[in-house]
């Protein structure tokens, strides 16, 4: 019985996590983070390649 209770808790946590993640994605897109990520990724990251 205790195992089944723990499973139900994990199931609920999983669904809450999915809802929070989707909400965060939508909030980020609303605040134009797509462009921030895109523009940052398109510029060559000199730190990543070891050039100061």
């Amino acid at each position, binding site marked *: 019985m205790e195992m089944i209770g723990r499973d139900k808790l994990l199931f609920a946590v999983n669904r809450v996590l999915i809802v929070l993640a989707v909400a965060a994605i939508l909030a980020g897109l609303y605040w134009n983070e797509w462009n921030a990520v895109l523009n940052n990724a398109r510029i060559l990251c000199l*730190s990543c390649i070891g*050039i100061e």
Partner: protein
Amino acid sequence: MQRFWYWLAKRRVIVQVLSAIGLNSYVTQAVTKGLPCPALNCYACPAASLACPIGSIQHIAGARHQVPFYVLGVVGLIGALIGRGSCGWLCPFGWVQELVYKIPIPKLRLPNRFNWTRYVVLVVLVFVIPIITRETWFCKLCPAGTLEGGIPWVIISTDIRQMVGAFYWLKLSILGGFLAWMSVTRRPFCRWVCPLGALWAPLNKASAMRLSVDEDTCIRCNRCQEICPVNIRVYENPNDNACIRCLACVRECPQSCITVGAISWSLETDRAG
């Protein structure tokens, strides 16, 4: 359904090859680099088609001083669905570690006792120092960036070759150190350093994809630990936060008592997978 997982587990290397090619397929990068990559794949790689989530988090949190909702949401959604499954199936740097480990030299089996260090790397190098200094400090030290971005750019660009200085050699020596460690220990970067793995690790327990062990059938032969790339005794905790969901244990278990299933409201459905 278990037959499918067994079939898939035997073909994991094909998925890893396809993932490495797909994540670095070049042609779509003008548009798709706005999408965070479901693995640690450097966006400085000349052919990278997606954005590195750790680099993007550092840029948005550090340089822009904003909460990276979108990137954390994508990472969180992947974690909520498959936990650290991306580490075992999609990460090109994880695959490199597995290839280097195949070098036939004496091996060193290390316990998972100090794997909390990856959380320190996540907090200090991805959030705290970048927020203070406005510099992407994890990227500066990341060996995956050296391998996927630094070395290819120095080979293909004469301009960048002329800019190489002491910092490049420092990055190269960090990569060299990790390559040496990878040759004797399984997946050391994933286990002790990777901040993306640190973001996904706590989600293993509550992810939709789950492993379970039939305790009545398990004979505790430790075959699962022998073949596990992150040294877990699967029968003790099938959804351990170190597990990268590679399913090697599912494939190799002599009793076939490890099963893959989806999280569900009732235990019975979970076991049925």
